[in-house]
């Protein structure tokens, strides 16, 4: 099936894949070819792509995504999110530093607005860190 992952910074993925695992508001779903037609809301988290049927779990590709919309039709999956990053494009050290800053910001938040912003940042960097770690682990296998 064709996967098109579109972000505000351009089309990130546009190719034939076998399986897509994506976090949604109703839990994580795995999408295979001929999945029933569905439009649902994607949650900020990690998506995994299996390119070919026989690919092992070690060959899964991981991306960190923000909230968005998933549209599944017969032979096509459209994923619309603000931002998406491949594990290989994320620097683990930079994300760790950013996460520490966000945690500090959360602890020192003076009002609800700052606290909400800090929570969002913590969530975002946690997801990015997970993707970077997954990428590193699988690269070494």
């Amino acid at each position, binding site marked *: 099936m064709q996967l098109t992952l579109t972000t505000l910074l351009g089309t990130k993925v546009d190719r034939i894949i076998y399986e897509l695992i994506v976090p949604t508001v109703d839990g994580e779903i795995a999408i295979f070819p001929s999945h029933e037609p569905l*439009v*649902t809301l994607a949650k900020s988290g990690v998506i995994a792509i299996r390119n070919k049927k026989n690919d092992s779990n070690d060959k899964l590709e991981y991306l960190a995504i923000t909230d*968005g919309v998933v549209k599944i*039709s017969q032979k096509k999956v*459209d994923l619309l999110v603000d931002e998406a990053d491949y594990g290989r494009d994320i620097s683990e050290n930079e994300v760790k530093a950013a996460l520490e800053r966000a945690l500090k910001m959360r602890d020192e938040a003076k009002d609800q607005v700052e606290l909400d912003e800090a929570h969002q940042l913590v969530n975002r960097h946690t997801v990015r860190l997970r993707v970077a770690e997954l990428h590193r682990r699988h690269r070494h296998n």
Partner: protein
Amino acid sequence: MASTQVLKSRIHSVKNTKQITKAMQLVSASKMRRAQDATKASGPYTQAACELLSSLSNYTSVEQHPFFVKRPVKRRLIVVIASDKGLAGAYNSNIFKAYIEQLKKDDKADIKNATIAIGRKMSQFVTRIEDSNVMGVYENLNDRPNQRKFKTILYSIIEMFEKGEIDAVDIIYTKFINSISQQPRVDRVLPAGFCKTKSENTSPDIRFEPSVKEVLDVVARRLIGAQVFQALLDARASEHSMRMIAMKNATDNASDLADDLTLAMNKARQGAITQELAEISGGVESLNA
């Protein structure tokens, strides 16, 4: 005529300025190329959001969603995008002009307005205007859509519109057409325009989770976000482009000025030599007499 020493120091100073403007021109050219590529990047996103809306319109009345419903405009929010730095030719003054025009229009139509200023130059400008109701000022925005400032702007616009505090949101920015041509534009963000596209093969038994209404709400928000983000990208590309042209003109002018000054200096030097020769030959003549 100025002395050769004065002219020499002026030539030196003009050449130094030329080096600076040349460097700024090259920096702007490189930033413009990157910004220009970015302006094209969000096109597929808007297209995808419009396709989703078209699919949704088969199941619900998209036009009835609060973001798309037009109401009589009594209060309007104007989001104005200018730059943080100067030396970009007429970039900021064009935006200021467009903004003032909109304020005058509102005055005539008896519409109350509020402003969100983006960019240091804009914030300095709006604070100088009497009776301008400034709701927010944002400086130093980068070009990441997930950055805090962009989200804050977007959420506050949407919230004000939803609460009914404002009836319309317009954005004033410079549309990037190409590296030579940029135009100040006023675009309506809210109520949003419904961009109906050919909905391709939407299956009749498609399911929406959690519900059609919630999916529509998310897609509509994304469409508005994309429009604001696109305006920011366009503004950025236009700024770099206009700065590049302004700096190119400054470099050319500096070259012309340096040439003129060199000519004047050579003339002054030659004049001094001729005078000295005349004096020497005059002296010799008087000795021989």
